């Protein structure tokens, strides 16, 4: 029993390595699945439930059509109970004698779910009884447009319809659930014109106009979270339902149904693709790191069992047989460890992943990955023990393969790093175009890690001879320090291995941090530049923003104009308030935003002076005089560029942009697009604008503006990179542990002798700290330098939307850098404690005999 316990204890490092490997391998599978589910959740929340749902028309003139349609729809999974819609388009005589084309609508909750505040809705009686036959309810705006009020009558054909209620206007940002499938009756047209007239009516009322009637059955995705696979299943079911419908009614409606779910799935797939592609280098590097850990663990195992391995080697037992002796217990430990790794990954993704909803297929893949890890681990241990066994006793062979293979590996990695940099320079990283994801080549994305790896190995190659030349230094140091220093420089191999592992750990961690923080910051910067501020609301009215909302807002007008036949965006800002709502990154201009606005200020009414403007575009230069040709205007607007900037808040396209005082723009452009920008707005800001009488168009929120695109996937994609840093930290710890274990016997014997000469515990501590600290500090500094250098080269080239300002910019992650530097002495003391403990723990006599 003791023997078994001892043997299993020797396998603990292997178990740990397998656990780590299984955690990484299965964790990435689960993480991608979690990202897919989160993306689905986000897309479904963004999209109108009617758009992501499915509607089948009820054919006119077919007896019993509705039950057949319902039966077809019932086969679609994950759906709420069906909703029935009814509509008819009529021409009605208004009280003033004019006529109006009016759509009568009947659908669940149209009267109650208007998006208006409950008090207003109650006051308007919208939560009241259903409408009676012949009664209509219209929105306030529609009532005004038709010139009706409660009690008014409309005549459609030979039928009289009574306006029974006037309900508040339907909210537009967002359109409430009941109305979102009918948003064409709610949202203003792009020109600012009101939507077509409509009225809510009872089914009996709609049925009066049978020849103009259109009925449908609508299915909406249930409110429970669904996975990407389930969404794909739903989409497939929609298509089957269309085919079934066509077959049942001998019709071809397939082309008439726009499957909004397809867009939702496309977007979510785009996010998943982004995450998955970004994870490729992580997977590869994790694999390398884990293999190193596994091999280190296998070597440790061989060391732990060195007596047995050496004895069998002396007896000429083939290495494969030596390794096979260890396989049963390795299989046991690897199996348990991979299962624990899988469970741990599952737990971590459930708790910390973007979504806790994981696909069963992903779980199966994760389990298979964990199983594969266990098998690979057994193979690695088998191979490592075989090699160690073969070389443990036989000194008569040629050089160990590792001696000549290392330079080849280093040269190969340098070539790989250079190659990957060239690919990154050529093709960039992952590029997002709406829902489409392009690029994401493993070779290009892997540059930061390949560069770090190659740089570390080259530096370590140079360190080997340097350490050898330092062997005789340190003679003037105090005794304990001298001992520590001499142990550092005595053998280049262990010292350089520790430096390499620590450099990789520090480098990978700081690179991960810089990339991850950089991705989030990029998203924020681009979103803010895209929106122009925290919130941008497109409005169709010229009235002033009410005083209660005006704080932290600014009005902006835009128009497309032409300069020498090329379209340019004209951007009119209020110089007084714009700097309060917008930010300009310091690499856009040498002037601050306020300084730039000062150049625009006071431009109006300066006699024959040309209005000053700011140019945003690479071809524009200060002093240029531009003739801006405006559609519908005979005279061009002539402006003089007083400054140029690399990018500007609100620059959303690749077009050049000219920024002027809005007064200048308003004087020249009759129909500009109008926006209200707001900094830190309250939640009810848009509602407040609507209540103040503004007609609201597009609402852009910098926090969510990219949620509908796969760009948002980058936020999740870089997070697991940090795991690489942790992995290499484990490698570093494993290497140090190996070194400590390898030197244990010699250290014990030396201490047994030296302590008789007054070399006490304190001296031992000083020597141990020096021994541990030097390679850690060198490794950390090397890794930080290389990691930051590699990321600084990579970040500008990894920009996922290079056409969208501002460009990606590298910033040193000071927090992580300082954290790593602070961790070095702590780690050194912990290693020193291990050294001291392993040195003083042994039996002095057995140590001298070399038995411990």
């Amino acid at each position, binding site marked *: 029993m003791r023997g078994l316990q001892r043997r299993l204890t020797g396998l603990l490092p292997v178990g740990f390595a397998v656990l780590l490997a299984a955690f990484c391998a299965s964790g990435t599978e689960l993480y991608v699945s979690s990202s897919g589910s989160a993306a689905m959740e986000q897309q479904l929340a963004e999209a109108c439930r009617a758009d992501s749902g499915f509607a089948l028309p009820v054919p006119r003139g077919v007896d019993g059509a509705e039950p057949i349609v319902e039966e077809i729809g019932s086969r679609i999974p994950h759906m709420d109970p069906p909703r029935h819609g009814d509509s008819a388009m009529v021409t009605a005589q208004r009280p003033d004698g004019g006529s109006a084309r009016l759509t009568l609508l009947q659908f669940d909750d149209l009267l109650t779910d208007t998006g208006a505040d409950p008090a207003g809705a109650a006051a308007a009686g919208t939560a009241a009884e259903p409408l009676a036959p012949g009664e209509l309810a219209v929105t306030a705006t529609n009532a005004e447009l038709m010139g009706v009020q409660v009690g008014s009558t409309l005549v459609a054909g030979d039928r009289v319809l009574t306006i029974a209620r006037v309900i508040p206007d339907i909210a537009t940002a967002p359109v409430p659930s009941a109305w979102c499938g009918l948003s064409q009756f709610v949202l203003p047209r792009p020109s600012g014109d009101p939507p077509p007239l409509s009225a809510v009516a009872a089914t009996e009322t709609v049925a009066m106009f049978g020849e103009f009637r259109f009925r449908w059955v609508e299915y909406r995705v249930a409110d429970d979270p669904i996975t990407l696979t389930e969404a794909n299943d739903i989409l497939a079911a929609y298509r089957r339902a269309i085919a079934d419908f066509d077959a049942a009614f001998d019709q071809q409606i397939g082309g008439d149904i726009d499957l909004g779910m397809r867009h939702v799935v496309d977007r979510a797939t785009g996010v998943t693709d982004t995450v998955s592609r970004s994870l490729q280098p992580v997977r590869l590097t994790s694999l390398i790191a884990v293999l190193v850990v596994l091999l280190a663990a296998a070597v440790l195992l061989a060391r732990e069992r060195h007596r047995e391995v050496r*004895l069998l080697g*002396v*007896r*000429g037992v083939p290495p494969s047989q030596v390794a096979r002796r260890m396989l049963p217990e390795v299989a046991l430990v690897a199996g348990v460890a991979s299962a624990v790794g899988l469970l741990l990954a599952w737990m971590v993704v459930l708790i910390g992943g973007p979504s806790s909803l994981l696909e069963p297929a992903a779980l199966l893949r994760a389990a298979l990955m964990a199983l594969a890890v266990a098998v690979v681990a057994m193979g690695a241990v088998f191979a490592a023990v075989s090699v160690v066994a*073969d070389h443990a006793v036989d000194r*008569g062979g040629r050089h160990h393969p590792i001696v000549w293979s290392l330079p080849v590996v280093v040269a190969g990695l340098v070539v790989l790093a250079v190659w990957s940099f060239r690919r990154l320079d050529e093709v960039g990283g992952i590029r997002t175009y709406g829902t489409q994801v392009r690029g994401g080549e493993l070779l290009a994305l892997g540059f930061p890690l390949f560069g770090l790896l190659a740089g570390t190995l080259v530096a370590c190659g140079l360190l*080997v*001879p340097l350490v*050898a030349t330092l062997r005789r230094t340190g003679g003037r140091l105090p005794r304990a320090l001298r001992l520590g220093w001499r142990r550092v420089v005595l053998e280049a191999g262990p010292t350089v291995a520790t430096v390499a592992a620590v450099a990789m750990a520090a480098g990978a961690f700081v690179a991960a941090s810089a990339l991850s923080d950089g991705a989030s910051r990029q998203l924020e910067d681009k979103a803010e530049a895209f929106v122009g501020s925290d919130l941008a609301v497109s409005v169709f009215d010229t009235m002033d923003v009410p005083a209660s909302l005006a704080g932290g807002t600014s009005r902006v007008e835009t128009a497309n104009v032409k300069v020498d036949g090329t379209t340019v965006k004209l951007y009119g800002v209020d110089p007084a308030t714009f700097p309060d709502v917008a930010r300009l990154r310091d690499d856009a201009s040498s002037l601050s935003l306020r300084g730039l606005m000062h150049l625009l200020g006071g431009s109006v009414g300066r006699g024959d002076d040309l209005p000053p403007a700011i140019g945003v575009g690479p071809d524009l230069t200060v002093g240029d005089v531009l003739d801006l040709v405006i559609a519908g205007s005979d005279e061009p607007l002539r402006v003089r560029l007083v400054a140029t900037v690399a990018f500007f808040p609100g620059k959303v396209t690749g077009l050049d942009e000219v920024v002027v005082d809005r007064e200048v723009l308003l004087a020249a452009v009759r129909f500009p697009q109008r926006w209200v920008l707001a900094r830190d707005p309250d939640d009810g800001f848009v509602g407040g604008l609507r209540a103040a009488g503004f007609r609201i168009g597009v609402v852009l929120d910098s926090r969510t503006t990219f949620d509908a695109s796969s760009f948002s996937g980058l936020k999740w994609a870089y997070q697991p990179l940090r795991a690489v840093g942790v992995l290499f930290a484990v490698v570093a710890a494993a290497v140090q542990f190996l070194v400590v274990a390898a030197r244990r016997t010699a250290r014990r014997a030396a201490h047994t002798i030296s302590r008789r000469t007054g070399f006490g515990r304190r001296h031992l501590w000083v020597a141990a700290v020096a021994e541990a600290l030097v390679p850690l500090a060198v490794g950390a500094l090397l890794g930080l330098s290389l990691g930051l250098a590699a990321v600084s080269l990579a970040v500008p080239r990894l920009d996922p939307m290079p056409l969208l300002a501002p460009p990606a910019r590298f910033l040193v992650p000071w927090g992580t850098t300082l954290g790593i530097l602070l961790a070095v002495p702590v780690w050194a003391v912990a290693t020193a404690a291990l050294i001291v403990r392993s040195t003083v723990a042994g039996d002095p006599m057995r140590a001298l005999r070399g038995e411990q």
Partner: protein
Amino acid sequence: MRPVGRSDQLVVECSGVTRRYVIGGRGSAGSGSEVLALQDVDLEVPAGLLLALAGPSGSGKSTLLALLGALDRPTSGALRVDGVDVATLGRRERRAFRRRRAVSMLPLPADNLLLDLTGRENVVAAGHHRGLLGDVRSRADELLAEMELDAFADRPCALMSGGEQQRIALAASLIGSSAVVLADEPTGALDRAGAATVAAALRGAVERGASIVVATHDPNIEAVADMVVRLDHGRRVL
């Protein structure tokens, strides 16, 4: 004069064997220094003898044993063991040679045994390692009885004294049909009594037909050896 063995067959033939090492770093650092562990050693050992290789530390005894046991290769010179030209063997062939023809014993008793196993199990395991077929256990029992080790053959080796461990190790070395047993300082880690029992066991094994070459400082072993060869600074001096 060639010593007289139990047969005229030579189990070891060395001619001009030299072994040179580079230590303290190789190649890139350029700081390695060369050590001449053996120089032009000639040696012939008839089968059925106990040969003691004597000499001070660093004289080349262990190096010579490693060469004879196919654990190392000479830099130059000819080296035949049991008729096999050991110097020219590849790694795989050396491994096969160690399994079938020459058994090496390491200096520390514990290094020669699987300590979790009993003495008998160790002897049986050694037989299996050498590829013995048939009733290995009976052969092990006979050997243990011949060497008067059966009293503690069922005790786990971890619980044995150093002398007991080394005698079990000798038994494990003798199972099978190896041509020669090469023991490096087999009494180096033992007290006087333990060393005496091991020396007696070695002598007994030779009496039963084994050929054994022992590197030793131990006068007990030199006393029971058929032949003593002295090395000094890598050269044969006697």
